[in-house]
């Protein structure tokens, strides 16, 4: 697999495939997906009743399956999907099925480098996870909220460790759930365990838990914080110092807490999606400073601009100095960078993407039913039936844009200056 620097960054447009021609070969073609480097386009295709395959740049995989769903390219360019044969399910990567087969398989997760693929699995109504075709030794009556560690080496989930029947409410309230890391459960049990976070070194596991019907907190490696709250949201673990950070609710307001202690000196109507900058210096979260108004808070300070409907998809620049997010006001989608709203508004806009230096922000946008690219509040002059998220070159001076127009899939390399001209 070529690294990003080795991709074809020669400016220009190159037609990769005409997926319209695939129509002649198959009963139907499902929605296509494209490889990170833009060189391949793939889709699940139906050949006949109960016969499915994957078509990549016009070539089908060797094996035909009874059913295929969730086709996705991993960040390293491998193509993975859930496939079924003879009533059993597994993962197929570039057409090769894993050795292990399951009753069902879902929730595919990739590590950032794409080398690791994790999935949730069910066999004989017992639940566990599998990582790169290696299955947990332990299985559980139920499992929710599967997670993959940042380095892709370990998996975790909330698991049920005590059987109970529907209607046994008091047994349930004694605590029948815990968290498991690579299948190894905590000793402590809780009424509920929700989202888990694995530390950067993969040694620690944190989770949001409910101790009884009313008291919530964060548990780290099975030990709850001494402090309890009226509610909590998902924790994150600081990649550098290992501190556990989570939104907590007390007396009707939300705060950001670190290792059980209130961190920021402000309270909010809502606070969620906390995130740490890549350099570890800055904390940010999506907040509602007052009822019905949404914005970002960076190190506890909310942006002056607020939005009515929604703020979502927040992201730090690689150097950690900038924050961009998508907002929505009265059905118009907006891009906000460091608290400044782009003048252009959109029917829809997707997650902002920073250039490696953080100077440039690009995003996929929709206007009047066509899709295009916006860079630093400038809209590229061409629009398409479909596009995928833009990708910056390693130097940040070009953008790879993958587009579909009239069934022609094209790979474009655009100098930034051309878009900003």
């Amino acid at each position, binding site marked *: 697999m070529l690294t990003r620097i080795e991709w074809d960054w020669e400016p220009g447009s190159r037609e990769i495939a005409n997926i319209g021609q695939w129509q002649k070969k198959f009963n139907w073609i499902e929605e296509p997906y494209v490889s990170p480097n833009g060189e391949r386009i793939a889709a699940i295709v139906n050949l006949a009743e109960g016969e499915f395959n994957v078509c990549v740049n016009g070539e089908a995989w060797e094996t035909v399956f009874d059913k295929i769903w969730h086709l996705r390219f991993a960040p390293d360019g491998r193509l993975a999907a859930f496939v079924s044969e003879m009533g059993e399910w597994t993962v197929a990567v570039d057409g090769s099925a894993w050795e292990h087969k399951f009753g*069902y398989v879902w929730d595919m997760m990739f590590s950032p480098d794409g080398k690791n693929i994790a999935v949730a699995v069910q066999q004989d109504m017992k639940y566990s996870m599998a990582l790169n075709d290696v299955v947990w030794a332990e299985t559980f009556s139920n499992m929710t909220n599967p997670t993959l560690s940042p380095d892709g080496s370990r998996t975790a989930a909330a698991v049920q460790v005590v059987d109970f029947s529907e209607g046994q*409410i008091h047994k349930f309230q004694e605590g029948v759930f815990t968290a498991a890391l690579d299948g190894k459960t905590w000793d402590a049990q809780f009424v509920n365990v929700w989202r888990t976070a694995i530390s950067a070194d993969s040694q620690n596991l944190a989770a949001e838990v409910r101790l009884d019907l*009313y008291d919530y907190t964060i548990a780290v490696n099975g030990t709850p914080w001494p402090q309890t709250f009226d509610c909590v949201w998902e924790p994150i673990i600081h990649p550098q110092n290992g501190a556990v950070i989570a939104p907590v609710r007390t007396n009707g307001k939300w705060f950001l807490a670190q290792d059980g202690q209130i961190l920021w000196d402000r309270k909010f109507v809502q606070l969620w999606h906390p995130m740490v900058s890549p350099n570890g210096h800055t904390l940010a979260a999506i907040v509602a400073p007052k009822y019905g108004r949404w914005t970002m808070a960076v190190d506890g300070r909310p942006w002056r601009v607020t939005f009515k*409907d929604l703020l979502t998809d927040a992201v730090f620049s690689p150097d950690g100095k900038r924050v961009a997010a998508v907002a929505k006001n009265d059905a118009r989608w907006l891009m906000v960078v460091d608290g400044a709203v782009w003048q252009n508004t959109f029917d*829809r806009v997707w997650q902002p993407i920073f250039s490696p230096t953080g100077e440039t922000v690009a995003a996929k946008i929709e206007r009047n039913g066509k899709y295009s690219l916006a860079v630093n509040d400038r809209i590229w002059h061409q629009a398409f039936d479909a596009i995928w998220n833009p990708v910056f070159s390693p130097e940040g001076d070009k953008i790879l844009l993958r587009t579909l127009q009239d069934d022609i899939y094209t790979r474009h390399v655009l100098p930034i200056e051309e878009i900003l001209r």
Partner: protein
Amino acid sequence: MTEAAVKEEKKITDEGLEVGVQNLTAERIQKVINRVLKGESGARLKAYVDTCVHCGLCSEACHYYLSHDKDPQYSPVGKVKQTLWKMLKARGNVSADFIKRASEIASTECNACKRCAMYCPFGIDIAYMMLTVRRICHLLGVTPLYIQDTAHSHAVTMNQMWIKDDEWIDTLQWQEEEAQAEIPTLRIPLEREGADIMYSVIGPEPKFQAQLLYQAAVIMDVAGVDWTMPATPGWDNSDMAMYTGDNEIMGRVKRAHFETAARLRVNRIVMGECGHAFRSVYDMGNRWLGWRMPPIPIVHAIDFYYELIQNKKITITEKFKEPVTLHDPCNVIRGGGLAEKARYVVNAICEELIEMHPNREHNYCCCAGGGVINCGPPYKMTRMDGNRIKAEQLFAAKSRGAKILIAPCHNCHSGLEDINHHYGLGYEIKFISDILYEVMDKPA
């Protein structure tokens, strides 16, 4: 109408209440009541309490009151008097037995249908007060067992039927395969990011009523809708935690729902024929989270069918012949203003609509909503005895020729089935989609 079964007074035993009160102390009761009344309910509750002049005009609005021969104990104000007013007057110093009875009244003798709010000269929202009582009872651990179990299901799975993550996806794929027997190229597109619409349903559909998923898929396919369904938790729009007073779980479930729609970057969420879920996504759940309005617009099925028919995305082969009557669900008609659109749809697909009276926002409740039917079998007779007036209303429509009862809400549908059977009304009860699917133009 046949004679109802001979009424037999029977003490209701509910483990959720019985065990719950055993753990109460006077201090805990007082602390929780004062926490809710002073810390959570605030100005809204105070305004209601201070404004009510005890006129009793709300009484005639309540189906329980009317069905119990105008017994004042069943009047809306009577229920407030027996619960919240006593808590306020005693500053929270009430007994465990009082809490048990308050839970029973608030959870099973009020459907939170808000009809009474229309009859109050001041517009006092008594349903809100009953839900405040439920909130207190939740924080005291005294909630009817069946609905508490449902709230637990929401907490674990984010759906109300203990449906596990894989079972949901598997059910959609099963229904897709079933529907492909009728339309070979039909798909239920999973996780199709950027689709126009995310279609969301309530837990009972995959659990017991998978044919509704089938019908929805056919309607979407024939209408050429660009749609998707999530393959993750967040697919269920229902919310019984809203009705147990477990606001924190209500918020968690609604967050999953809206963030799933935002992740899929859809323009709109279209929801199936459910009433309470509409209230949860359009009013209570979103607002508890801090969203004044849903962050992704919500379109109820009635509104969606209206749009499809008016825009000729769906055309009708031949209208449904048998005379129908239409039940107006409180949350989408009184709460959502869809009365005329519902009639537009029903008239477009049926030869004859025979109105029941009263109708539209004045319609009588089904006595199942507000979480009452979810309190389970112990309270079935509470619902039957408490809604004789509905049986009389339905009987009157039947005597004018109605044969089919359309109930575009899951709880209404189930509750009216019970009323229909108990009072021997002889209706066949259908969702709008049952008829729409039957009469629409489909590929040969």
